């Protein structure tokens, strides 16, 4: 496409020099079709979100390795308690409901962000953070109960891989709660400026991604763990 017009402006030595000679080509306005090299962005305009998505994908690989470890070791009980003996499904159902609810409340926060209502946004963020904190509370209660019953991570390969996988997810949720508190402070202090909105979208991806990982956890670890 550019080859047909390239002979007209002599300063341009070749079509390959186009993207990197942005400042020096103000005199080359006559070469109309060549403008596509500089006028339109050759990369995605929202690089932050794509970069954060790539981070989440790397996080996904971390969880994949922990899932693989649990898949290999999840039935190595070493004469210790089995999943059917230690898992309390009602507690897990409560936990799952809390995380699922926190996902929709974060969605409401995003809707308030689009409507430019910082107070409502802060309210929904607070609800989301409290639901996340309740999730962590239930999980810590479960862990404490297991350790109290002598079913800590040292007991068997099954429990080691279980604590590693579920504990890593819990650590991520804890970091998400810290991030929510940070964003509440930021929004309260600086309002809904462009940077804060971008951060809130990143946090939304992070929070919903944790919910996706939890689907794998409650399906693969808890529900399949209690099957005979």
């Amino acid at each position: 496409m550019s080859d047909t017009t390239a002979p007209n402006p002599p300063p341009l030595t070749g079509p390959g020099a186009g993207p990197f000679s942005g400042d020096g080509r103000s005199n080359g306005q006559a070469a109309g079709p060549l403008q596509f090299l500089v006028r339109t962005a050759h990369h995605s305009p929202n690089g932050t979100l794509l970069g954060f998505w790539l981070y989440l994908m790397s996080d996904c690989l971390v969880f994949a390795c922990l899932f693989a470890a649990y898949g290999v070791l999840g039935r190595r009980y070493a004469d210790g308690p089995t999943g059917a003996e230690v898992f309390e499904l009602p507690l897990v159902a409560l936990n799952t409901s809390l995380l699922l609810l926190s996902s929709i409340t974060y969605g409401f926060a995003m809707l308030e962000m689009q409507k430019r209502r910082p107070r409502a946004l802060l309210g929904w963020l607070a609800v989301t953070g409290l639901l996340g904190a309740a999730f962590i509370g239930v999980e810590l209660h479960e862990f404490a109960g297991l350790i109290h019953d002598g079913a800590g991570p040292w007991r068997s390969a099954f429990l080691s891989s279980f604590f590693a996988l579920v504990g890593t997810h819990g650590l991520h949720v804890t970091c998400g709660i810290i991030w929510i508190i940070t964003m509440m402070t930021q929004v309260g202090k600086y309002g809904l400026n462009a940077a804060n909105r971008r951060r809130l979208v990143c946090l939304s991806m992070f929070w919903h991604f944790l919910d996706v990982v939890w689907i794998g956890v409650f399906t693969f670890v808890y529900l399949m763990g209690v099957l005979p």
Partner: protein
Amino acid sequence: MSAHDTALGDAGAHDHDEDEELPHSTFSGYMTGFVLAVALTALPFWIVMGSVFHRSGVTAAAILLIGAVQIVVHMIYFLHMDGKVQGGWSLLALIFTIVLVAIALSGSIWVMYHLNENMMPGMMQPMHNPP
């Protein structure tokens, strides 16, 4: 591509140039996703806690399938994943990650299964023939 550009231009026209890069969420989208997610969460818990199927193999297959469907629902309605986000690069990264995850999971389980079957006969129970 050109349609995408004009859509961005329209968004920037009435909202200054700040929000054009952020995805747009809708209430109906979130509620659709939430209702589907609640149903797809309650179903596997009901299947397992209510002992709906007698064979655990059938139960495992069912809840794994439901879990996969729910992950797709969350991806579409909560993470707003489709082929147009970031010009398709997000979806490409997602597909690449899914391939790596599949290799890691299936490879680990396959290799460890064969190690158990072939290299540690003394520590295992007598070989059980798969039906």
